[in-house]
C-alpha cells in the first residue's frame, strides 16, 4: 500500500483514514506493507511500515504538512532539499526498486501524490491489480476551480491505467467520471468511517469557560472546525452568520483552525459588523479541539467541495449535531443531519437560526445522529475492500 502520511507523524485527514482502514483490513487474511516517503516510528504491529527514499539517504526530514519540502541527509553527510515534485520523483524511484525486489498481490495507492509511484510499481509487478484510492481530486482541492494541470494529468493518466478506482463517496465517483471520463463500472464507492469507541472522552469541564457562562445566560454557539481555505466555504458561513445574528443576537460563531483565509475571514467578520459574535481561536489540538465541538449547539460544515469530510462524524461523537453542505460526501452515510447547498446563504441562515432557537430540534438531531454513529465501523469499509482485492486478484491472474 502506498501512502504519503500516517499518524501520529505529520498527518492530516488522509493519514488518519489510511491508518484506520489498514487497521481494520489487517483483521482479514491480508499482510500490509505501507510504504511512506519518510521514516516514521510506527509502534503498532498490524502492518509493516517502510520508508521509500533515495539510496544512501540516511535521514529524511520534513517538519509539517504533506505539501512541505523535504530534506535528505545522505550517508556521506551531504544534504539535499527537494520540493513536492522532487519528493514524488524520489519516492517513485524508490518504490519501483522496492517493488521489483519483493512479492506482492495487490498495489493499493492513496491519492495523487502516490499515483506516479503506483504506476512504476505496476510496471514492476504486472500481475498485481492496481487499485487507486481517491480521497479527493484536484477539483476538490482547488475549491471548484480546475486546479493545477500537472496534477490533473497525473490523476487522469493513472486512473486510466488503474484496474480499479475506489472513491470515498458517490460524490467523488461522479466527479471522477465528470472530470476524467473514467467508465462508471471501473469505480467502486467505499465510504470512510469512524470508530466512535476510539474517541477520547470529554472532560467534565469545557476549556471554553467563557462560552459555558454565556450559554447559561441564554447564548448559543455555532462552530466550524477545520482548515480555513476556500474549499471549506467559510465566506458563506460568515454571510449566513450575519443573518442569524440579526434574528438571534445571542449567538456566537466559533471558528477553529488556521489557513490561508484566516486574515481575510477576520476582516470579513469585522466588515459585516459581527466581530463581537465571531470568535477566531486559531489552530487547536487535543482537549481544546474536542471541546470546540462539545461546546457548540451546532457544527456547520459549509464546504464547497468535500469528497468525504469526517468532521461532522467527530462532532456527533462529541455530542453536537450538524449542518452540512450537499456538496459533502459524508451526507451519504450520515442521514440525521441538516443539509444545505453551500451557495444558499439564506437557507443556511434559516437552518442555523432554527437550531439556536429550538433546543428540542438540536437534541433530537443529535440523539438520532448518535445512534447512526454507533452503527458505523471501519470493519464495513475493510469488508468491501477485501472483496475488491479478491475479485481483482482472480481477474488479473486469470
Amino acid at each position: 500500500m502506498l501512502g504519503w502520511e500516517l499518524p501520529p507523524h505529520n498527518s492530516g485527514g488522509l493519514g488518519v483514514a489510511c491508518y484506520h482502514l489498514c487497521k481494520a483490513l489487517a483483521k482479514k487474511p491480508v499482510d500490509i506493507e505501507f510504504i511512506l516517503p519518510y521514516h516514521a516510528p510506527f509502534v503498532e504491529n498490524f502492518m509493516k511500515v517502510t520508508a521509500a527514499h533515495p539510496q544512501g539517504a540516511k535521514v529524511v526530514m520534513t517538519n509539517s504538512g504533506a505539501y512541505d519540502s523535504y530534506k535528505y541527509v545522505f550517508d556521506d553527510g551531504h544534504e539535499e532539499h527537494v520540493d513536492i515534485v522532487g519528493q514524488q520523483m524520489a519516492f517513485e524511484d524508490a518504490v519501483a526498486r522496492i517493488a521489483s525486489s519483493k512479492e506482492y498481490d495487490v498495489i493499493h495507492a492513496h491519492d495523487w501524490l502516490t499515483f506516479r509511484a503506483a504506476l512504476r510499481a505496476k510496471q514492476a509487478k504486472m500481475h498485481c491489480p492496481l487499485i487507486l484510492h481517491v480521497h479527493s481530486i484536484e477539483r476538490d482541492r482547488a475549491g471548484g476551480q480546475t486546479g493545477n494541470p500537472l496534477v490533473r494529468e497525473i490523476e487522469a493518466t493513472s486512473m486510466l491505467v488503474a484496474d480499479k478506482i475506489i472513491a470515498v463517496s458517490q460524490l467523488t465517483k461522479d466527479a471522477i467520471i465528470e472530470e476524467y471520463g473514467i467508465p462508471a463500472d471501473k469505480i467502486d464507492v467505499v465510504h470512510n468511517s469512524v470508530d466512535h469507541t476510539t474517541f477520547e472522552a470529554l472532560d467534565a469541564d469545557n476549556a471554553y469557560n467563557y462560552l459555558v457562562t454565556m450559554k447559561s445566560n441564554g447564548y448559543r454557539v455555532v462552530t466550524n472546525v477545520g482548515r480555513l481555505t476556500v474549499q471549506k466555504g467559510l465566506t458563506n458561513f460568515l454571510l449566513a452568520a450575519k443573518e442569524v445574528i440579526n434574528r438571534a443576537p445571542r449567538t456566537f460563531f466559533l471558528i477553529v483552525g488556521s489557513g490561508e483565509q484566516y486574515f481575510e475571514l477576520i476582516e470579513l467578520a469585522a466588515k459585516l459588523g459581527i466581530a463581537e459574535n465571531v470568535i477566531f481561536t486559531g489552530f487547536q489540538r487535543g482537549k481544546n479541539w474536542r471541546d470546540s465541538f462539545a461546546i457548540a449547539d451546532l457544527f456547520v460544515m459549509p464546504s464547497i467541495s468535500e469528497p468525504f469530510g469526517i468532521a461532522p462524524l467527530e462532532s456527533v461523537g462529541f455530542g453536537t449535531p450538524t449542518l452540512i453542505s450537499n456538496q459533502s460526501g459524508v451526507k451519504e452515510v450520515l442521514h440525521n443531519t441538516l443539509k444545505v447547498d453551500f451557495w444558499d446563504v439564506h437557507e443556511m441562515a434559516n437552518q442555523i437560526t432554527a437550531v439556536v432557537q429550538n433546543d428540542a430540534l438540536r437534541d433530537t438531531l443529535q440523539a438520532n445522529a448518535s445512534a447512526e454513529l454507533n452503527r458505523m465501523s471501519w470493519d464495513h469499509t475493510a469488508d468491501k475492500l477485501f472483496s475488491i482485492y479478491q475479485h481483482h486478484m482472480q481477474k488479473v491472474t486469470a
Partner: protein
Amino acid sequence: MTKAIVLYMHVHQPFRVKHYSIFDVGVDHAYFEAPYDDRTSNEQILHKVAQKSYIPTNKRLLDMLRDYPQFKLSLSITGTVLEQLERWSPESLKSFQELTATGRVEIVAETYHHSLAFFYSRDEFEHQVQMHKEKVQELFGQTPQVFRNTELSYNNDLAYWADRAGYKGILAEGWDPVLDWRSPNFVYQPTYTENIALLMKNYKLSDDIAFRFGNQAWESWPLTADKFTNWLNESGDATNFNLFMDYETFGEHQWDETGIFDFLYHLPQEWLKNEGNSFMTVSEVIDANPPRDRVDVPQTTTWADTERDLSAWLGNDMQASAINALYGLQDKILATKDMKLIEDWRKLQTSDHFYYMCTKYFNDGDIHAYFSPYANPYDAFIAFMNAFHDVQFRLTEKGMEV
C-alpha cells in the same frame, strides 16, 4: 523681533494586552500582565525605554535647565505611563519630578488613558481629563493650562470644548491644508471660540529631529544644533517654532549613537547666541503673543501618517468593530461601580490598541510594525477582542445582561 522655540514632548506608554486567548476568558482577568520575557510585557518594555530614553534624556534636560537659565520646555505625560513609572521605574518618575521642580517645565493636559474617548463619549472623555489633571497635581504640583488630545487629534468641536473648559491654549498639527497660506510659526485662535489660543506643530522642523535626525541618506545629515538654529534664524517672520514630538525620540527612536543627546544639549547654546531668541513653554508663548488669525478645522486632524487623520486608529473594519464594541459597554460598566473593572475597561481605550490593528501598511513592515508587539494586526485584534469578551464575562458575573 523675538523668536521662541516651543519645545513640547509627549511621554506615553500603553498597557499592552498580552497574548490573551479565548481559553483565558473568564479564567484570567490580567490582560495587561504578560510574562516578563514576552514581547507584550509592559514591565519589560518600560524598563527598556527607561534605560534608553527616560533616564538619559532627563539627565540631559536637567543639565540644560541648570546650565541655561533661559531654557524651558513643555511635557505631556499620560496617566498610563505615570502608573507604569510608579510601579516599575520610580527612578524615572523622580527625574521627571526634578524637571518640573525647576519651575521651567510645564505639563500639558490630556486624557489619563491616552484614549479617543472625545469621539465616542463626551462624559467619559471629561472624566479621563479630570483623572489626568488630578494625577498631575498629585505628582507634579501643577495644574495644566493648555490641552492636547490623544495623537494630537483636533477639530473645531474639540477647540470649542477646551475653550469652555477654561484652557488658555490647545495644540494641533500644523497641517498644510488647514494652515493654507499661513505659517505654523505664530499663535492662532480656533474659529467659534472666545479666549483660547491654538498652537500648531511645525512638522517640518519637528520631523527633522524626530524622524530624519539619524538618517544618513538625508541630504541634511548630519544635523547639528548650529545648522538647525541657522534654519530658524533665517526663517524670516515668525514668533514661535513649535517643535512637538514624542519624548521617546530621544534615545528610543533616535538612538544615543546618532548623537541626538549632544544635539539636544547644544540646542540652547546655539539658539541663545542671537539676541531676542528664547525658549518658551506653551503657556508663555500664548501669553506673549496675541493670535494672528482664526483657523477653521471642521475635519479631524492628527499628527500621524501622510493622511494626518485618524485612519491609523479607526481606518479599517477591525478597528471600528473593536472600539464600537468597547464603548458599547459603557453604561453597564459604569453602573457596576466596580473600580477595577472600570479601570480595565479604560485601559482598553488607550489608542495604541487600535493602532496595532492597523493594516494600512501591513505589507511594508513599516513604522506601524516597528511599534507593535504583535506578529500582525490580526493577532492584535484577536487578543483585544478576547479581553473585551472577558469584560463582558465580568459583567455577567455581576448580573448584568450582555
